[in-house]
């Protein structure tokens, strides 16, 4: 997962086709044709709707571009963002990149299937 500091230079290359999606939008209702990056919003880190949006985009709709978390993005939610299908995140200004990397590296594996590892642990273990 690509981590972007809040004060970093805008990473959008000129002409890149970016779609911003509000967290009450249904990703199945929008056209993804030609879209290179989708930005999903966390208005507050405790509002978990964008996790489902990311999952649907990555798994259900097979979107292969960048899915970016924006807004109230805190280091402790990064592992679940990565597992839900986010590929980049713009951290809130006060967040520490080193702490973020430590959280992402913590768990070697999880129980349930997700957007990245579709199979649950029991199927991989079998």
């Amino acid at each position, binding site marked *: 997962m690509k981590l972007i500091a809040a004060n970093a230079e805008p990473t959008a290359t000129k002409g890149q086709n970016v779609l911003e999606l509000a967290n009450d939008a249904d990703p199945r209702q929008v056209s993804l044709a030609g879209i290179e990056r989708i930005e999903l919003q966390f208005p507050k880190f*405790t*509002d978990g*709707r964008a996790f489902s949006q990311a*999952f649907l985009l990555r798994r259900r709709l097979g979107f292969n571009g960048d899915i970016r978390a924006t807004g109230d993005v805190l280091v402790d939610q990064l592992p679940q963002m990565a597992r839900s299908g986010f590929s980049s995140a713009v951290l809130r200004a006060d967040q520490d990149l080193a702490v973020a990397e430590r959280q992402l590296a*913590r768990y070697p594996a999880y129980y*349930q299937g997700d957007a990245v590892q*579709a199979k649950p642990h029991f199927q991989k273990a*079998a």
Partner: protein
Amino acid sequence: MYQYTEFDRQFVRTRAAQYRDQLERFLSGQLDADAFKPLRLQNGWYIQRHAPMLRVAVPYGELSAAQVRVLARIAREYDQPSHEVFQGAVAAQNRLGDIQLRDGRAIGSRLPTGYAHFTTRQNVQYNWIPLDKSADVMELLASVGMHGIQTSGNCIRNITSDELAGIAVDEVADPRPFAEILRQWSTLHPEFAFLPRKFKVAITGAREDRAAIGWHDVGLQLVRNEGGQFANGAEGALGFKVLVGGGMGRTPVIGTTIREFLPCDQILNYLEAVVRVYNRWGRRDNAYKARIKILVKAEGQRYIDEVEEEYRQILEVDGAPHTITAAEFERVSASFVPPALNCDRKTADAKIAQILRAAAEDDIEFGRWLQRNVAPHKNPDLRAVTLSFKRLGQAPGDATADQLDAVAELAERFSAGEVRVTHSQNLVLPWVRCDQLPELWREARRLGLARPNIGLLTDMIACPGGDFCDLANARSITVAEAIHQRYQDLDELHDLGEIDLHISGCMNSCGHHHSGHIGILGVDKDGREWYQVTLGGSDGSALSGPAGPGKVVGPSFSSSEVPEAVEAILETYRVLRNPNEPFIETLRRVGAEPFKQAAHQVRHDLERRAEAVAEHAHQA
């Protein structure tokens, strides 16, 4: 019990390490209180009225003796506040005053330390552990495969089940393998850690609902499908009846059946649809309207249709990735093979007869214990024995460190090393040989855990209430104590028979007041403690009838009036009952009116009494 693999053990240790990292960042000021709050909650750590509270997860209520010993050690070594914290708590509680009883006695807060507390959701809580020791406690828990994962927070909470799961005589199938598979699926689910509100799942495999599934966000009942008929217990494909949208709180609602039959191997795929649709549409603007019950009530069939469509896409587009394989079901089920135990029933009968012939006192007490605390078992050689944690001087469901150590020993001697936390805040020994009942009775009696009151009035449910909880409007434990003191006579208790008395300190309903035959709810009025009394609630069991909330008895009562109101209600029952008719049946037969009138008569303030009676007459 489920046997942890190295993967499971490592997972829990990693969780403890992750929590320590978070705690240290919080204590050093690197992580602010708002960001830390949901992290600690999802590990079971609340900040309460006087001190932090820890809720330890006990998946579907099952504990090993080794785990009980660690719970005892935590009570002994960590459930200890600093002198300042304790003195502050005592001062705060003293300001609340005492409940004045009619006989002149007064009941105030006790604030015991060094205790563990069993909750209605089969978990274990501590009231005094300092936050700076919280990571040490999580590591200690992890040493026996325990944790506080998702015992709080707006996520899928620890899953509850029937306390007699796998041993009940009325069971269609053992729900524990499914409960364990659900535990694994819901643990650190990436998509569902920040739902609109908490999400509670209960599962049963029996005909008698001992898990109150209708009162949960999701209630699951194992059923067998034979030739398209839903014949419970008949041989056929195993599946789930799925209820969604039950809950207590401010708006009590019984779950809606959204599936009569779901093939059992599809439960994870189906629940993913249930929760995903809720995550999208559940209200986030008002915490009181954020539970799934409000969504299901508001949207009705539209919610169900959307779940079914999402489920179809999970199967057809995603490829049903969470289907439970036969291999996994067998692997998990292998942990739940009953221990090899049997006994010579002739010897057992002889021993029991011998005791019944012995001293008259023993005769009555042992007989009552056999009747109230000993339940039949799938294996006719075995019994399930309830240890009563409803005794005078201890809050309902409280256990000292010494009692927990003693329970661990009883579990090893008499119950294949296993013990279970019950929905009604007691412990069950699930594997007791019937020829060992007399020895177990003697040991349990010696420990004060053999009070034969299971299912009776004093087997009441109560939350920690205003003695500990930050949300409470009024105290629960003092009211429980006042009623317990009044009903000490076992002859009287047995004469009154089976009664569910449930006490909650506030609308959050942790004491399940809605489902009590008699419910007591703490309300805050003019900064004083008041209590609303309800009649006729049901958790959904055969005794109580279909699940449903009780009806309120007029305006609220003062703390001193509550024990008298309960007494008046029970006196009315004694007068009106038919022979052998339980309280709840008399209440249904004659209606609530005479009980309400009797309760109104105890109001100390004559003006309020007249108002209540007049208002009552108006409503009638």
